[in-house]
C-alpha cells in the first residue's frame, strides 16, 4: 500500500498538468469564439491557400 505515497502525488501531478493546459488555453483565447472554428474546419481541404495561423 505504500505505493500510494508515490501514486497519489503522481496522479495529482497529472491533474496539475491538465489544469495548467486548460488555463493556458483559456488565456490564449481558445474558448473566446466557439462558432467560427467549427465552420473553418469544413473548409481546410482542397486547394487551400491559407497557411497555419501565424501568432
Amino acid at each position, binding site marked *: *500500500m505504500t505505493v*500510494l*505515497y508515490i501514486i*497519489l502525488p503522481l*496522479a*495529482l501531478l497529472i*491533474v496539475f498538468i*491538465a*489544469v495548467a493546459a*486548460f*488555463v493556458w488555453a*483559456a*488565456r490564449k*483565447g481558445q*474558448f*473566446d*469564439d466557439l*462558432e*467560427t472554428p467549427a*465552420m*473553418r474546419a*469544413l*473548409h481546410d481541404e*482542397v*486547394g487551400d*491557400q*491559407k497557411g497555419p*495561423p*501565424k501568432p
Partner: protein
Amino acid sequence: MSTVRSAAASPRPLACDHCGLDVPATLVDAASERQFCCTGCRTAYAILHEHGLGQYYAFGEKRDTPVRPTGKRYEEFDHEAFRSLYVKPLRGGLCEVELYLEGVHCSSCVWLVERVPLLLTGVVRADLDIRRARAHVEWDPVVVSLSAIAQQLDVLGYAPHPFRGVAAETMRRKEDRAMLMRIGIAGALAANIMLLALALYSGWFTGMDIEWERYFRLVSLLLTIPALFGPGWLFFRGALASLRTRRLHIDLPIAVALLAGFSRGAVNTITGTGPIYFDAVSILVFLLLSGRFLQNRGQRAAADAAELLGSLAPNAARVIDESGERELPVEALLPGMVMTVRAGETFAADGDVTAGRSATDCSLLTGETRPEGVDIGSPVYAGTVNLTGPLMVKVTRSGEMSRLGALLRRMEESTRRRAPVVQLANAIAGWFVAVVLVLAVVAYVYGLRHDPAHALDNAIALLVVTCPCALGLATPLAITVAIGRAAKAGILIKGGDAIEALNRPGLILLDKTGTVTEGRVRLVRWEGAEQVKPLVAALERGSNHPIAIAVQQAWPVIGTLDAANVRQTAGGGIEGDVGGVHVIVGSPVFVARRIGAQDQAPDVRIEAYAEEGLTPVWIAVNGSVVARAGFGDPVRSDARVSIDRLRALGWRVALLSGDHPAVVRGTAQLLGIDLADATGGASPEDKLRRVEEARARGTVLMVGDGVNDAAAIAAATVGVGVHGGAEASMSAADVYLARPGLAPLVELVEGSRRTMLVIRNNILFSIAYNVLGATLALLGLLDPLIAAVLMPISSLSVVLTSWRGRTFDAAVAPRGAALALSSIPVAEAAR
C-alpha cells in the same frame, strides 16, 4: 436557394450564379453561360474564379442577398485620425485592426473573408468571428494600404466598418476568460477531492488504516486550499462587499458556510477526529461558479448596444475646401466644413443644406418611411440617407454631438441605468441569508449550553444543509435551459430578467413599420385602366424613390416604353413624356397643382386611402387624372391572431410609430387596436418618453425593428427586436426574434410563463428542503457528514427539474431558424 439551372426551360427566372437570387429579365444575358442579378455579384464571381477560389460555390450555402458593394474608396481608412483611433501597431512594422463586417452570416462567408484579403500582398492575417461579425486583420502598412483591404471586402458585399468598442470588448473578454479559468480549476480540484472522499467513505464502512485515512485527509486539505482561495475567492470578495455596503447578498452565507466548513475540516484534519467537509466545500465552489457563469453570459450581450451602432454610422465624408475635394474620416469633421453628399449616400454629420435640392430618408431617426424634401437651408441629420440629388451641406454638429450621437448616448444611458437583475431567487436569498445566519448563531449558542461537544457540528450542519446552492443554481439553470430551447425555436433571449419580467403582463408597444407590417412599401391598390400601367412603369423605372421601387416590383416586365424629360419633385412626384403623352405621377396635391385644378373640391378619396393606411398616388395623363394607386405597407398575416392571443394573456397592446398618424390609425383599425392606443408621428425621443412614462405604471414590452426604436427598446422593461431589423435595435433588445412575424412574440410570452413556473417550483422545493434540513440540524439530528451528502442531492434534484421542464417548444422552429441565428448581429444589409 436550390434553384437549378434547368429552370431556364420554364418561365421561372434564372438564378444568379453568385447569390442564387432571381435574375431580373432585363439583365439576362442569353449569350452567356453565367447569369448575374447585379454587377456586384458579377464582380465577386470574377474575383473568386480568377484566384482559384471557385470552391466557394461547392459549399452549397449561398448568400441569400445579392452582393451590393457600396463602391466606396475607404480613403478615410488611411487617414491619420482613423489610424490613431482604431489601428494598433504590432511588432515588426505590422498593424492590426478590428473591422465590423456587414452581411457575414454563414460558413462560406468565413471562408471568403479569411482568404480574399490574403490575396493582396502585405496582408498577413484575416480572422473572422462569425457570431460577432468581426474580422481581425493584420497587415504590413508599407506594402498595402488598409483602404485596399477594405475595398476588397466591400467588393464581396461585406462592407467593413471600424469596430469602435475594442476597449470595452477586451475587458469583457478578460472577465469571461477569468471566470472560465475559475470554473476549470474548481472543477478539476473538486473532482479529485471527491475521489479521495469516495475512498474515505468506503474506508469508513470497510475499515481503513488510520495512517491512510490521515494521509487522504491531508491530501484533501491540500487540494481544498487552492480551490477555496483561488476560484472560491470570488465569493469572499462578494461577501466583503456585501458587508461593506450593508446589503445582504447571497455571497455572504456562501462565504460563511465555505469558511466554516473549511476551518472545521482543517482543524479536524490536524486533530485527526471528526468529519472533514472538503468535498462539500469544493463541489459547492464549482457548482456555484458554474451557475454564475451561465447567468452572466447572456446578460453580457445587452451591453454591446451603442458600440455596434456607433460602428455602423458612416466613417467618412467628402469635404470641399481650398485644396479641392477629399475624403475625411468623421472623426476629423469639424463644424463649419462643407461636405458634398451624393444621392444614395448617408449623411456623416448634422448640417444645413447650402446647395442643391433632394429628398431624404429619415427612417433611421424617425421611422417615417416617406421621404422628406430638403432645400437650401433645411437641416439634415447624420445617419439619414440622401435620396434623389447631390447636396452641399455645411456641418453643424458631428460625432457624439449629432442628433444620432445624442440618441445613442441616451440609449447607452438607459441600458446602464437599468436596475441590476433583481431575480426572484435573489430577492428571496436576502431573507434566506438573514434567517440562516441567525439560526446558525442560535443553534451554536443553544448548543454550547446544552451539548458543547456537538454545538459547532450542529451549526455547521445547518449552514451546509441550508446552503442556498439549490436557490443559487435553480434560477440560472432553469433560465439557461429555457434560453437554449428558445434559441432553437428562433427566439434569442439575452438575459434571464426578460423571462422574469414577461410574467407580469403590462403594456406591449408595437412599432408599426417592419414589426406588424412587412416593412416594405408595396402597391396595394390600383384604380384605373391597364393601359396606364406601362406609362407609369416607364416613368418610375429610373428612380430610386420607395414608391418607384414598389412600382418596379409590382410590374417588373411591363412595356418597353421610354420616358423623356423626366423631372422629379422632392416630396411631390415625378413627371415626364412617355410614348407621346405627358404623364404626371405623384401625391394628389402635387398632381392637382400640376394640372391646374387646385380650386376643385378636395378629393374625398384621399381620406378613404388614408383611413386604410395607404399613401395615395394620383396619375394624370395629358392634364386629367386617369388612375389612382394606393401604396402601403401590408400588415403581416399573423399579426391579428397574435395580438388577440397576447390580449388574452392579459397584455394591453398599443401601436407606437413614427409613421403618419392617419396611416397608424388605419393599421390599428385593421388589427382591432383601440384608436386611443395608436400613436403616430412619434420621433425617437417621443418613443423613449412614452416608454419611460409607461414604465412608471408597470411592465413595458417594446417591440421594434429600427434604429429609431433602439432607445425605446433599451429603456423598456423588455425590449424586443424583430427579424430583419436594424442592428442597433437588435443589440439594444433583450430578446431578438429570428423569425418573421408576431407569432414568435406570443411564443416568447407563453414560454416565459412556463419557465417561471419551473423556477417557482424549484425555489419552492429548495425552501421546503431547507426548512426540513434546518429543523433536523437544529434538533441535532443531522450529522454534518450526512448534511454534506444531502446538500448535493438537493442540487441534483433541482438540476433535473430544470432540465425536464417544458418551457419553449423547439419543434415549432421552421427550417432555417438555426441559420438565422448565426446571423444575429448582421441585419439584412444595413443601409
